[in-house]
């Protein structure tokens, strides 16, 4: 049973921000509620005021700009809307693929991208994937709007760079070029993923060597994170001789993983799985060129 609270229905981001500014610790932004209502039911948090972001016009917009090739995902866009959007399916198929596997269809119908990122539950998929797009997050506060790189957004388990009165208005990410392919691999034994690895692989024009690679590991530690040490080992590698380097890169990713023991498994186990899934995800991305 939820404790009593008042529901506010602001019509602008400024009004929403001002409400949380006014009520402070007694208020929280509310979007899909798929995370927030669960912890409120458990009594882990208690808010007397929820500020519904879905009453703000435009916050649920999903736009692809062909000129800049940038996808702008409004904060209250649901997982399912993202999964099913034609431009996402055509231009960002990896996002549709990953979103299709988030939780279950009921959660995807209601849960929002902004809520998912701001709640910063470590066992989640979108943040890990967005890191390999070098995505940017738009945060609107009472006075201004700032842009935070995805890599600086997650600061800890359930913690982000967002100030309490800032609204996540959108995530922006750019479409990959003709020589880039993505893969995302995860596994889990509970409702939420135990481990997720995203790889964005860019080959050179004749597709014989690794021009660039972005690798992000999620779920095993407090925050999803890119693994520059692993990326550096693979960058410049001829594809025909990549196996040795991939072993070293996977080991580097495992070494960099800030794995924690939890119900999903021991840190030791997760570190081993990081190795396995970095290899698999890299090979899956490479296979998408053929």
């Amino acid at each position, binding site marked *: 049973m939820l*404790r*009593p609270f008042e*529901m506010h229905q602001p019509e602008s981001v400024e009004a929403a921000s001002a409400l949380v500014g006014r009520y402070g610790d007694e208020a929280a932004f509310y979007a899909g*509620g*798929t995370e927030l209502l*669960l912890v409120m039911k458990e009594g882990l948090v208690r808010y007397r005021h929820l500020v519904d972001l879905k009453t703000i016009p435009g916050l649920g917009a999903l736009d692809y700009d062909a000129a800049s090739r940038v996808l702008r995902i409004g904060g209250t866009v649901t997982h399912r809307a993202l999964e099913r959007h034609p431009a996402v399916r055509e231009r960002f198929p990896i996002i549709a693929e990953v979103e299709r596997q988030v939780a*279950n269809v009921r*959660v995807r119908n209601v849960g929002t991208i902004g809520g998912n990122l701001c709640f910063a539950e470590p066992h989640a998929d979108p943040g890990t994937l967005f890191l390999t797009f070098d995505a940017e997050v738009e945060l609107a506060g009472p006075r201004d709007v700032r842009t935070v790189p995805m890599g600086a957004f997650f600061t800890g388990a359930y913690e982000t760079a967002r100030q309490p009165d800032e609204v996540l208005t959108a995530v922006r990410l750019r479409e990959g070029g003709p020589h880039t392919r993505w893969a995302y691999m995860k596994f889990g034994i509970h409702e939420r993923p135990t481990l997720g690895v995203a790889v964005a692989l860019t080959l050179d024009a004749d597709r014989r060597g690794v021009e660039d690679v972005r690798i992000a590991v999620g779920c095993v530690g407090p925050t999803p994170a890119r693994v520059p040490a692993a990326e550096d080992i693979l960058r410049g590698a001829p594809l025909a001789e990549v196996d040795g380097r991939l072993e070293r890169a996977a080991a580097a990713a495992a070494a960099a993983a800030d794995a924690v023991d939890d119900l999903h498994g021991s840190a030791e186990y997760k570190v081993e799985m990081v190795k396995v899934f970095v290899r698999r995800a890299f090979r899956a991305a490479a296979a998408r060129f053929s």
Partner: protein
Amino acid sequence: MDAAAPAARPVVEISLTVNGRPHTLTVEPRETLLDVLRVRLGLTGAKLSCDVQVCGACTVLVDGLPVSACTYLAYEARGRQVLTIEGLADGDRLHPLQQAFIDHAAFQCGYCTPGMILAAKALLDEIPRPTADEVKHYLRGNICRCTGYKKILEAVAAAAEALAARHG
């Protein structure tokens, strides 16, 4: 003012349509759609089970989309169409999904069945002739501890056939 008087709880008036019938209700924002359906409207088909959006026993359709009514505020249903298992049959004539679940023995205890059938309805509305993998994927979030799922998958496939035949 009587200082001892309890503070009035916040309420909100909502208008929604449930199984084709319009309702205007005064609810507390904290009330879930499941509580309103079961307690206020007496529609007890949707069940409370896990209470954390994992099991699917509370599945109802809001504007045609499955949601977990246990973790979905009644407030969210304002201005929307809600369908529960009680609204699926056409009078005494069962919906093809309901008939298929009977014909294929796709339930035993029945606790998951209303949610399972409504999720399957949303699937067939979206993809009238789903593959077996599409059915499994869509129903992944509806848990049945009796049937082992095989009978459910058979029933959904049969209902898809029946609906396709009906629509020519």
